[in-house]
């Protein structure tokens, strides 16, 4: 169980994510369109993504650092072609010392487990108990200074 947690946390610890800009993009000093331009990045320039703020991502590119429009980035997968480790864990867990398959409960949600699932009314009841009332949720939102705004659905 511990091993799984550690494996799942790894991507969070990654500091720099390799990415590339999908179009010619200005590298900005600050996360704003009117900020000074540090460099012009041609299409497909490789960058390291460092952090996101709103619609901007801080990147390191060609020896410079600055902000690019977040949606101009696509993350590259070279070096990330492997497994996050789930399959290996399942294989070990399901084989066991006797060689017979054991149900471990960590298998989780794949097409097979959903197809073969039996209803679990006890968990359903538990979930009802965790429900939030509209008022409680509104107070919770206010704590984080979230304010409801009117936003139209695009046609």
């Amino acid at each position, binding site marked *: 169980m511990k091993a799984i947690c550690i494996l799942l946390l790894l991507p969070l610890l990654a500091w720099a994510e390799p990415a590339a800009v999908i179009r010619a993009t200005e590298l900005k000093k600050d996360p704003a369109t009117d900020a000074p331009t540090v460099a012009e990045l041609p299409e497909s320039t490789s960058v390291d993504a460092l952090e996101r703020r709103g619609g901007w991502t801080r990147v390191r590119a060609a020896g410079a650092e600055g902000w690019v429009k977040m949606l101009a980035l696509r993350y590259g*997968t070279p070096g990330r072609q492997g497994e*996050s480790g789930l399959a290996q864990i399942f294989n070990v867990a399901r084989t066991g010392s006797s060689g017979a398959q054991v149900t471990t409960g960590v298998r*989780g949600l794949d*097409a097979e487990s959903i197809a073969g699932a039996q209803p679990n009314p006890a968990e359903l009841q538990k979930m009802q108990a965790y*429900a939030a009332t*509209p008022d409680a949720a509104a107070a*919770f*939102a206010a*704590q984080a200074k979230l304010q409801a705004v009117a936003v139209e659905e695009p046609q």
Partner: protein
Amino acid sequence: MIRAAVLAAALVALPAHAQFNFDLNRAIESVRKLGRATTEIDEKQEIEIGRDMAARLLGAAPLVNDARLQRYVNNVGRWLASQTERPGLPWRFGVLDAPQVNAFAVPGGTIFVTRGLVQRMRSEAELAGVLAHEIGHVLKKHHLKAIQKGAQAELAGEALSMAMRDSNSEARAKLVRFGSEIYSRGLDKSDELEADRLGVVIGSRGGYDAYGLPAVLQMLQAMNAQDSAVALMFKTHPAPAERLDALTEKMQPTLDAYAAQPSVVERFRQALQPK
């Protein structure tokens, strides 16, 4: 109108008096002969079918045993649901104890997100974006419509009517099974892209940084499609890059207008800390 009246009368009569069975069958038969067997699912039935489907998903993976995390996700989700045109549904949110990266919408207002997905998020705005995407599926009844369509093909008018009426019937079990299969098969691509747009809209309405959902899609895009953690999610959704392109094309003004709203990073981190 006459059809509705006959059916309504028969349905009301049924539970109390089994002898009306015959009348009900006759009523349904006559409706069927007219070729207008009703397949409309009303809100009460939507909620009932959804409960059955939710119970099945919980049979595949239970809730994460962390009351604080579950209440936290319910607060975020319920706040978002209050900003929609179906605020009165019995909205429920749950984190499933599964390492895979996925989220599910169940008709009637039940939303699941997996532990594997939540652990890869970095802020409450990202969680809100994903929950808002799933809320979008419920608002537009994407799964319900797929069930209706499939049920029409699989169950004859009489059996479908039975499935609606009797939660213990074999026909109902078949309907729920069919509904659950959608989670392995996926919805139409257009449904997913619509839910993405709604994910941005509803997240923004809740006061969150509008880029929450796109940030999650970028995280997914960086994962290997062959990774078993994302296999089912990738099989049942358009590729993340395509979803990001579609959002860029249709949602750029909305995204930019609400990009400066809070991301709520600290509270999210605290909620995810192990008990």
